[in-house]
Each structure stands twice: as C-alpha cells, then as structure tokens.
C-alpha cells in the first residue's frame, strides 16, 4: 500500500505542477505540451484507481488525438503574444470579476457539500473482474440507445468539419492513380495508316 501511495503522490505532484505551468507559461505551444503531461499523470492516477479503460482511453484519445488538434489550432491561430498582452490593464477589472465568479461557482460545486469524502465513500473493490469487461456488458446492452446516438453525433462532427474547413484550390495539381492504371494504349498513341509517299 505504501508503494502505491508514493506513486500516487508522485503523479499528483507532476499533475499539479504541469497544470500550473499550462496556465502560466507564455508560449501556447509549451502550454499544450504541458497539457499532454497533465493528461499522462491523470491517466496514471486513474490507473491507480483501477480505472484501466478510462486511463488507456485518456492516453489514446486525448494525448493521441485531441492534443494534436490543439497543437494544430494553436499553430493555425498565429497568436502574437505581444498583441494579446496589450490590453491587460484595460481588461483587468472585467476579467477579475469573471475570475472571482468562476472561482466561487467552482468552490460551490466542487466544495464539501457534494464532493466531500463523507459524501462519496471509497467504493468497494470489485475484485478481479476487469472493469473494461463490466463497462462493455453495460454499454452494448442497457445503454445501446445512447451508444448509437454517439455514433450519430460523430457523423454530424465529420460532416460539420468537412463543411466548415474543406476548401478546393483549383490551382493545385495531383495524380489520380486509378486513372493512371486504367489508361490504354489508344488514349496516348494514335496510329495513322497512310500511304507511303514517293521520294522526291
């Protein structure tokens, strides 16, 4: 048990540190990379809670895909830090009020009333049954309707992403391998039968 606690505190320390760096570092690309570190240490913590599937899904989906998207977005936005920092004093009052409100809301939601240790006691360990297995048994039978809705949402996301970002560039050239393979001799070479001419 003691070894598990050491691992827990190590992952938690890395998580708190990197979360702090994410919001304080100036370069947005560095912030995104520290967010990756955040996700990794969170995956470690979830693994300590025996939530195997969630931990692997966090690494697979968030670190593997979402953070790549974040990096592309950060690079695409072309953020000029000097311009962003210009209006700091002007927005300080409004931003401060919003920040205090957000902190208050989070304290009310995450505070002791709903999330205390008395409210949510440590669940009984389920023994040697893999929780990925239990998740699967529930998800594809009892929750099949939300599961199918998820696929429809993903379909909408595909179509929306294509509709929003796909731009044709008429000046660009590309090969079509299918048409290259299909080509016949007749398409390229024309044999002309003609009488031989007399030599002059």
């Amino acid at each position, binding site marked *: 048990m003691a070894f*598990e606690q050491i*691992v827990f505190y190590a992952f938690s320390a890395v998580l708190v540190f990197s979360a702090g760096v994410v919001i304080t570092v100036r370069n947005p690309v560095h912030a995104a990379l520290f967010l990756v570190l955040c996700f990794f240490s969170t995956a470690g913590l979830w*693994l*300590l809670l*025996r939530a*195997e*599937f969630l931990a*692997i*899904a966090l690494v*697979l*989906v968030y670190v*593997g*895909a*979402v953070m*790549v*998207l974040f990096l*592309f*977005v950060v*690079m*695409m936005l*072309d*953020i*000029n830090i000097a311009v962003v920092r210009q209006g700091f004093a002007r927005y300080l009052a409004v931003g401060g009020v919003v920040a205090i409100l957000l902190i208050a809301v989070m304290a009310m939601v995450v505070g002791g009333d709903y999330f205390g240790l008395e409210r949510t006691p440590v669940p009984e360990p389920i023994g*040697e049954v*893999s929780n*990925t*297995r239990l*998740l*699967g*048994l529930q*998800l*594809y*039978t009892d929750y*099949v309707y939300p*599961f*199918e809705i*998820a*696929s*429809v949402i*993903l*379909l909408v*996301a*595909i*179509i929306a*992403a*294509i509709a929003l*970002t*796909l*731009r*044709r*560039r008429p000046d*660009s*050239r*590309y090969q079509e391998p299918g048409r290259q393979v299909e080509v016949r001799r007749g398409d390229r070479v024309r044999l002309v039968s003609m009488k031989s001419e007399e030599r002059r």
Partner: protein
Amino acid sequence: MLENYLPILIFIVVGVIVGGAMMAFGFILGPHRPDTAKLSPYECGFEAFEDSRMKFDVRFYLVAILFIIFDLEIAFLFPWAIVLKDIGLFGFSAMMLFLGILVIGFIYEWKKGALQWE
C-alpha cells in the same frame, strides 16, 4: 491487477531518469560562452526571412478532426471486443449499426475529397 502495470511504471521512471540525466549532463558539463552572434536566430547562414510563427493550412486541422473521430470509434471497439461472447448477437448488431453510421460519414468524406491531399 496493478502489478501488470509495474513494467510501464519502471519504463516511465527509467525514461525520465535517462532523459533528464542527458539534458542535465549536457547543461552542466558543456561550455557556456554565449555571445550575440551565437544567440541570434539564423536561417542557413543568412538573416531570417520571416517570423517562425507562420499560419498553418486549415487542412491539417481537418485531418486532425477526422482522426479524432475515428480514434473515438476505436475506443468504443475495445470493450466491445472483450465482451463480444457474452453480449451475443444483440451487441454485435449494435456495434455493426454504430460502425455503419460512421461508414456513411467515411463514404461522405471520401466522396467529398477531404482525404485528398493536393
């Protein structure tokens, strides 16, 4: 259960130590004699033409979003593959419907040319 993950933990620790040690040794043992010429940005020997913060083409973003969607699909496949024997034909057809709906999106993006890199 957690003992199955001990090799991964050892791997992480070794990776952090090796990576950190290499950077630390290079920082401690290497010579530090910076001057303005060394610290200034350069581009193959001449002055830099432009800022390194350039805009990326939006189609990288499109590819990343499509990748996320099919990555999520894979995440749904893992628990399904584990319990496939227990949930029977119903679970199998549920997943086939799920995949079928996503295949519609795949055909759409294929036909639309979103996967075409010009």
